[in-house]
């Protein structure tokens, strides 16, 4: 029998301090009127991206190996990620905050990896209450494809009219395969057309055709590009062959044209000129000398530096600060006279003006000249009311609208940076503009709200993001906290060796594999965006930051003492301490 010793005290709970009342009765939030707020901002890369791509969000998915999710996000803003991931001039990388820490994140390489490794469909599912209408898109280059894509996502019926045999525009006919393989292009275009867009090839639309279309379709988007070459003032008729660059690239006989040539001179220092030179390199004999001549200083050629670098590796010479003034030869071209040139930017118009430089002329051997100094639009096709004569472009306002009602335009046809990403933006802008107009929504109010930072680039995601990100504030490097990051070398894409490249048109750059892509994605600072690192959550001394879900936090203002650790420690400048009066 085990008895129990009887307790002879009153209440065991009160003979010593036994404390159970939660300290939560003390509202320590009253200690300070300062409270943190989560204010996501724009990252500088996104501000710089013409397509308004939510780069941090995309990279966040990639960093976890979720390439499908990353691609889905990308497709919200850019219908051609596999293209841009190969050919874009990556203004994002120039603005990447990581440049001030060690080196930029390889954003373009990541975009390519996401496009190549991910599987996703574009974000269909338009608002059933919106009005749907029929729209004609003329031209299937990046601008037209982009306009068609976004209009189709809004639910409209879209028909593309393409004058050539296949879709793609400059993507197919202007950019060589070693930069943009045809199968990739087919995949990218296929994804767009699979939305249910009607593509009519071999259909050239001129002025009359346009009138006909205006009766059949409620809105029209012109994206026919700029295929006419800018001319040199001094091209003789007698000696040749002297061709224009883009024509050369489109020409099916270009291999024959290069046969037997010993000295090919390419006039121009832009991306097209580089492509022309590199194409000639592949088609001409290995002994052929290929030289690029441009008025800019050698280090300042306007082409993307990667292209210049690769061209040099392939044995192409660069001659800067010269322009051709005379083509010499008896019945065929033998030499070109080059004059020293100075390039100055005209302050008012922003155009570049060439003038005589110091030094003697130079005579170089040439048996073929390819002139690649820019393109102009064929404005003769259209009504004078919509032509911007000074720049040989169609005139559009900030909503992509020409002066004529229900007629929109974009791409190289209008005055903009002649790049794929900018073309995509113009298509997107016009598409949004058309959609708002068709539904009677106030474009004047809505579209500026979607603009990113100081510029005019648009984000469709922002249309859906509902104010989660302050699109007007950009997270600068000085506002980041990088103490926990390490200086690392970026994961660079591998390239095939130059000797192997020039024998054909195989893709030069190999994309990042999965492992390297994830590794590179982890270098992103996610400037201004919350990536759910949980540092604020763990480091609050008063347990006043709650996790509400994936990358969502809330503040318990009843307890937050306003110490500001969260705001200080957030690596990405998301948290701000604000005075909150009761």
């Amino acid at each position, binding site marked *: 029998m085990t008895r129990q010793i009887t307790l002879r005290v009153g209440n065991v709970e009160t003979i010593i301090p036994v*404390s159970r009342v939660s300290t939560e009765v003390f509202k320590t939030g009253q200690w300070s009127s300062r409270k943190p707020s989560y204010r996501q901002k724009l990252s500088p890369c996104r501000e710089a991206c013409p397509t308004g791509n939510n780069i941090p969000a995309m990279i966040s998915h990639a960093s976890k190996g979720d390439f499908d999710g990353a691609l889905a996000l990308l497709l919200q803003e850019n219908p051609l990620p596999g293209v841009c991931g190969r050919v874009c001039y990556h203004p994002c990388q120039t603005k990447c905050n990581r440049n001030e820490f060690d080196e930029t994140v390889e954003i373009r390489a990541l975009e390519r990896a996401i496009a190549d490794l991910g599987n996703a469909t574009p974000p269909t599912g338009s608002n059933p209450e919106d009005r749907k209408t029929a729209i004609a898109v003329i031209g299937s280059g990046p601008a037209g494809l982009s306009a068609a894509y976004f209009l189709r996502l809004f639910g409209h019926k879209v028909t593309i009219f393409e004058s050539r045999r296949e879709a793609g525009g400059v993507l197919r006919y202007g950019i060589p395969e070693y930069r943009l393989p045809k199968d990739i292009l087919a995949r990218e275009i296929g994804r767009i057309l699979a939305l249910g867009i009607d593509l009519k090839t071999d259909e050239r639309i001129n002025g009359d055709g346009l009138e006909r279309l205006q009766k059949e379709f409620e809105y029209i988007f012109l994206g026919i590009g700029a295929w006419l070459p800018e001319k040199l003032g001094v091209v003789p008729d007698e000696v040749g062959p002297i061709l224009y660059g883009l024509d050369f690239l489109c020409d099916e006989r270009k291999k024959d044209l290069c046969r037997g040539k010993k000295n090919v001179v390419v006039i121009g220092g832009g991306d097209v000129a580089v492509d022309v030179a590199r194409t000639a390199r592949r088609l001409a004999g290995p002994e052929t000398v290929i030289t690029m001549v441009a008025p800019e200083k050698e280090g300042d050629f306007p082409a993307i530096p990667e292209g210049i670098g690769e061209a040099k590796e392939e044995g192409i010479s660069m001659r800067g600060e010269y322009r051709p003034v005379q083509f010499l030869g008896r019945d065929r071209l033998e030499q070109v006279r080059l004059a020293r040139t100075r390039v100055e930017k005209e302050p008012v118009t922003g155009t570049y003006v060439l003038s005589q430089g110091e030094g003697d002329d130079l005579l170089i051997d040439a048996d073929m000249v390819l002139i690649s100094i820019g393109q102009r639009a064929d404005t003769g096709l259209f009504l004078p009311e919509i032509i911007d004569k000074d720049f040989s472009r169609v005139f559009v306002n900030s909503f992509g609208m020409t002066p004529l009602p229900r007629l929109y335009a974009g791409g190289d046809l209008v005055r903009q940076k002649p790049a794929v990403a900018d073309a995509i933006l113009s298509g997107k802008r016009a598409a949004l503009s058309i959609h708002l107009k068709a539904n009677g929504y106030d474009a004047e109010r809505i579209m500026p709200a979607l603009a990113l930072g100081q510029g005019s680039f648009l984000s469709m995601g922002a249309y859906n993001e509902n104010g989660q990100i302050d699109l007007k504030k950009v997270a600068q490097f000085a506002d980041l906290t990088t103490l926990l990051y*390490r200086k690392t070398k970026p994961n660079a894409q591998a390239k095939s060796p130059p000797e192997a490249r020039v024998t054909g048109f195989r893709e030069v750059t190999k994309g990042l594999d999965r492992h390297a892509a994830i590794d590179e994605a982890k270098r992103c600072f996610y400037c201004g965006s919350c990536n759910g690192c949980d540092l604020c959550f*763990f*480091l609050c001394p008063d347990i006043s930051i709650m996790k509400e879900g994936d990358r969502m936090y809330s503040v318990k203002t009843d307890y937050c003492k306003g110490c500001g650790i969260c705001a200080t420690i957030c690596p990405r400048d998301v948290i701000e301490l604000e005075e909150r009066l009761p």
Partner: protein
Amino acid sequence: MCTQNIVEDQMRSGHMACPGCGSAIAMRLVLRALGPKTLAVIIPSCSSIIAATHPHSSLRVPAFHGTFETAAPTAAGLSYAMKIRGRNDVAVVAFAGDGGTFDIGLQSLSGTADRNEDYIYVCLDNEAYMNTGIQASSATPQNAWTITTPKGRTARKKNIMEIMAAHRIPYAATASIGYPQDLMDKVQKARSMEGTKFIHILTPCATGWRMAENLTVTAAMLAVETKVFPLYEILGGKTRTITYVPQGLPVEEYLKSQGRYRHLSGVEIERMQAETDEDWECLLRRAMDCQPLCANEKEVV
């Protein structure tokens, strides 16, 4: 090993720590890592205030308030009692400040370590007696201002980790509130082991270190990145493993962030840099390898 199965905090809001308190962060993270089946020992220190006065408690686990120099044997006593009563799933953790560890509690801590009693000892080191108003302890670094060492302390900080290693306890580790994942992983690792486990956490004090209250975590990061407070483990008193490779920023960056070092001359800073470098080299030589607890070091953020 990354922290597993952590669901909820075992500490509550509404406690009376100063805003920005490093010790509060550390206590919270330690208890979070240990989970609800925990018994805590609190002694006179800032933790005593943080855990709250009668009839309140900021802790969601049972706790006992011991005397200043007996955090260790109190925890050991609880640990024995739990085992005697067949409650083998309860972990006992003692929280002590640097004063209660390096100074007045050193003897009893040494005793429990010698006997390898089964509990976790957490030293919340803010490098002075802060609860009583900033008096120097033997954890106060050389040259640091305190009210009782207004010209800066002359002696160097005791190397408590090596003292504990000399007892050959199964596990000793340093941790910093600037690296919460590393801290929690170490606590969980300690919990999985038997015997005396010692965790030395640097917990900056805004009030005592003379800096703004939002900078305590930054200071804790800088201490690590400048190698002043390396993150490492000692197993069995023998095997040293560095668990985080610091950037090796100049010590001056750490010192200038705090008012308690404001009076330092260039010569003194140089000497502190030399001493830090020497200590780090010594640790490197003795360390087996550099092995972060999380598989990917870059998982830090």
